[in-house]
């Protein structure tokens, strides 16, 4: 039995009070930890996924939706744009690179992205096995896709309509896995990339650009899906798919049922090929001034800068985050006060013990230390429990909301900010114990011991 053991014994002796104080601190620390994990991981993920991309061009609609769907692969696209836009922008001298994206299909919830190898290169994607796709229906899969689906090289799979994995299967040619990427820590890990032509072909188009739009845009005869698509290119992707009726039934109970089906990259009615969005890299800073305006003047197109949209999103979220953080800090201050009150009143009843400890030879400094330790132990328990609860909540959120997991949210990572929170909580516990502990230097041993209470 040491003085440290005595600190523990005192905490155990008023177990209910101790538990409540720990609970209070756990709540505040957990809240702060959750905020830290969310904001740091999301901000970092935002940055990594948007690396190298200066501008996104897509169909008119919400710019944020365009960014979310084409860079982070979380929302449905705003619509499709003519393939001709690619050449138009590639001809622009201020543009360094144009990467087309054709979205709309998925395999077991992993998006199939029709694109070019430049897309993979943008994220520093390196093949772990196999080779880059060279022909239609060849697919290169991200590290997470390979891990979760267990797909290996040569594996054949059939893409299904829609981005959420609950659409019906295409009854056409299966894709073949020709390459598996090493993990990049970016959106690429959970994508299946293939030539744009695969997407066109999957939707009944011959890969070479068709000549002229001979057919009526509204004629859906060429579309071979067995349910009724309401292809409406007004850019309001969310709205027009609300009317989308699945007749074939959903086999799983995903909460993404409500998610609207995105547009198919290839327009079913005409011979004119389309893509979903273009990722643009500038050659010169001049482009930033001129290009977005130029694009937004086009009737069908809109340009959105990831940096601008994400800053806007984060500042919107930021207000909420600041409010929650302020609340959590208030909660922590409250728990500090509560520890102070608990120790202060406990020590009033323990003056006799303190005197006795002095008689038994404990130095005042040692007794002071053991009281401060009591506050520190309490705070440390609350802080560590708070970190555990915070991570558990994040793990549970990532497990129950696939969107969060897809955004890269993981509980298996610790931030230095968490260490700061834990240290702050422990420091606060020590501080709360400091004033009550000073009592030991004022206690009159003889008088206290003579007291018969």
């Amino acid at each position: 039995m040491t003085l440290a053991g005595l600190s523990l014994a005192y905490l155990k002796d008023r177990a209910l009070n101790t538990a409540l104080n720990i609970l209070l601190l756990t709540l505040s620390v957990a809240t702060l930890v959750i905020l830290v994990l969310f904001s740091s991981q999301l901000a970092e993920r935002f940055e990594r996924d948007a690396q190298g991309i200066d501008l996104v061009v897509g169909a008119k609609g919400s710019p944020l939706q365009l960014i979310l769907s084409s860079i982070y692969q979380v929302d449905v696209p705003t619509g499709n744009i003519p393939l001709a836009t690619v050449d138009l922008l590639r001809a622009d001298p201020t543009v360094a690179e144009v990467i087309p994206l054709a979205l709309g299909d998925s395999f077991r919830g992993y998006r199939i992205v029709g694109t070019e190898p430049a897309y993979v290169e943008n994220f520093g994607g390196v093949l772990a096995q196999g080779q880059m796709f060279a022909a239609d229906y060849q697919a290169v899969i991200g590290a997470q896709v390979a891990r979760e689906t267990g797909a290996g090289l040569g594996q054949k799979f059939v893409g299904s309509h829609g981005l959420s994995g609950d659409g019906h299967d295409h009854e056409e040619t299966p894709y073949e896995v020709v390459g598996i990427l090493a993990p990049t820590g970016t959106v690429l890990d959970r994508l299946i990339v293939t030539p744009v032509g695969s997407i066109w072909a999957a939707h009944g188009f011959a890969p070479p650009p068709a000549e002229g739009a001979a057919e009526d845009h509204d004629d859906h005869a060429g579309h071979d899906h067995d349910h009724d698509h309401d292809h409406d290119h007004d850019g309001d992707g969310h709205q027009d798919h609300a009317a989308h009726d699945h007749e074939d039934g959903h086999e799983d109970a995903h909460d993404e049922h409500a998610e609207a089906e995105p547009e198919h990259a290839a327009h079913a009615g005409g011979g004119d090929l389309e893509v979903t969005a273009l990722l643009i890299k500038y050659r010169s800073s001049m482009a930033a001034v001129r290009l977005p305006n130029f694009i937004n003047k086009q009737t069908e197109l809109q340009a959105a800068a990831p940096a601008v949209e994400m800053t806007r999103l984060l500042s919107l979220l930021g207000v909420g985050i600041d409010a929650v953080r302020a609340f959590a800090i208030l909660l922590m201050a409250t728990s500090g006060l509560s520890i102070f009150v608990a120790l202060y009143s406990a020590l009033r009843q323990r003056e006799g013990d303190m005197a006795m400890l002095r008689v038994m030879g404990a130095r005042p400094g040692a007794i002071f230390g053991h009281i401060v330790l009591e506050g520190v132990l309490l705070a440390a328990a609350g802080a560590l429990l708070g970190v555990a609860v915070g991570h558990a909540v994040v793990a549970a959120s990532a497990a129950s909301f696939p969107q969060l997991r897809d955004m890269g949210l993981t509980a298996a990572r610790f931030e230095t900010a968490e260490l700061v929170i834990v240290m702050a909580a422990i420091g606060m516990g020590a501080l709360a114990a400091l004033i009550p502990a000073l009592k030991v230097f004022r206690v009159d041993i003889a008088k206290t011991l003579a007291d018969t209470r």
Partner: protein
Amino acid sequence: MTTPAEPLIEVRNLRHEIDGRCVMAAPAFAAAKGEHTLLLGPSGSGKTTLINVITGLITPTSGEVRIAGQLMSALPAAQRDQLRRRTIGVVFQTLRLIGALSVRQNLALAQRLALGQNDSTAIEALIAQVGLTHRADARPRELSQGEGQRAAIARALCARPAIVVADEPTSALDDANAIAMSDLLLATAEATGATLLIATHDNRLRARFDRTMTLAAPQVAA
């Protein structure tokens, strides 16, 4: 430094006043190693005050206290604490067992503070000696007054101090236990060669002690 002849406790011209009132005036007194002394006197005569002076918890108004040859009033606080920790075991009138700890833990803490280490065999033996083996895990508030006193005595003895000072250690005990307790104190003191000073007005103990020291009511003494 302490030869057997040199007294372990030595008191001279001791007087203590509170608010100008003399509350304790002790006759000259010395106790050698291994001597057992009963400190007698009516209630309010200053027995507890004298014990506080001897243990260095109170600095007397005048007079000298030497413990193991060292003048208490000349020692800085830290050294006085150290001398008390190494040399004296105290049983207080109000027991002062630590409520958050079991009997066993109370003993272990005292031993740890005095010796810097724990010897659980010695503790168990002592607990058995005071007849508390079945109550070793009990908290002080769960003990009867007599059990508490026995626990406090065991705690004072567990570091095997050279001096054992006890203030009314048997006031709440029945005859059998009072005799058993004083026998325990005497036997332990005998075994360890400790010097024993017991303040009491319990006449049952009188016959068992070779020496007594009597405090008169201070008003009379002054």
